[in-house]
């Protein structure tokens, strides 16, 4: 099995385990204030890291290319309070234009 399959199966099993645990473990464990606070911060760190890595790195090097232009378009869309699909589409479109014509 390659990384893709292990990723698909492993993530699915743990994702379901986490969902089910909420319906079964005692409330006081998961609703501890510290767990709640850290749980709000972890997605911020991970998502931000994913944005950065997916925009300006390729394998093990830092690369600035058409993706960064697309990300710029996404930021503009978000600042204009665009909806999620518009944000993704404007990034894709801008990046594609830049990739194909520059």
């Amino acid at each position: 099995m390659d990384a893709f399959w292990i990723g698909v199966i492993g993530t699915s099993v743990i994702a379901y385990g986490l969902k089910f645990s909420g319906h079964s473990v005692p409330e006081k464990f998961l609703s501890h204030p510290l767990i709640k606070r850290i749980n709000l911060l972890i997605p911020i760190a991970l998502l931000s890291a994913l944005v950065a890595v997916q925009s300006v790195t390729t394998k093990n090097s830092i690369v600035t290319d058409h993706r960064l232009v697309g990300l710029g378009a996404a930021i503009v869309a978000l600042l204009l309070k665009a909806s999620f699909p518009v944000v993704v589409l404007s990034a894709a479109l801008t990046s594609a234009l830049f990739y194909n014509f520059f």
Partner: protein
Amino acid sequence: MSRVSSPTFRDSLSVSFTVGAYGVAFGAAAVANGFSVLQSCLLSLLTFSGASQFAVIGVIGAGGSAISAIATASLLGIRNGLYGVLMTPILRVRGIKRLVAAHVTIDESTGVSLSQESRGVEAMRQGFWLTGFGVFIFWNLFTLAGALGAKAMGDPSAWGLDAAVPAAFLGLLWPRLKSSTDKLLAIIAAIFAVATTPFLPAGLPIIGTAVIAIIAGLRNVK
């Protein structure tokens, strides 16, 4: 189940369709990151949690190991466990219904359910089930459409798919940035991840930022 009140039905359906449609972005991004159409669809069927799904394809697509992909996705899935805690006393289900309820316990089903509070507990239950199943159906259909579409397109860069992935992450991140701590954490995490990419094995620069988040959480104890 008693008759579903129309505002609850309308709320559930509109959320289901809008959110489900993001599945196109996921399906396309998964294929652009080297996943097969089958694998993309299985992620939507079995993991059924947007941020976690994007994380798996993001980490593995960047060359990360399966372990760091699973760890990153799982950290993003913890919140679904917290939603379960909120939903259990409202749903009051056992056996197979509880197993099904767990699978559709996500941001949207919990959010719609809680927003029906003024309409009573029965509306909260209906909001949960309608939104849970609604998002499930649309999310999976749209994932398939996006995956097949991306496969037909060929070179992901020519269509901007490689930029759509970070934009999708940014779209998920943006509404979470409320306090100045949130924003500072986001900036530090981004800098850390990029700066360590040339030195750490792929995947670690991402999962490593969870440690920064934990430190930030501990420091905030007043």
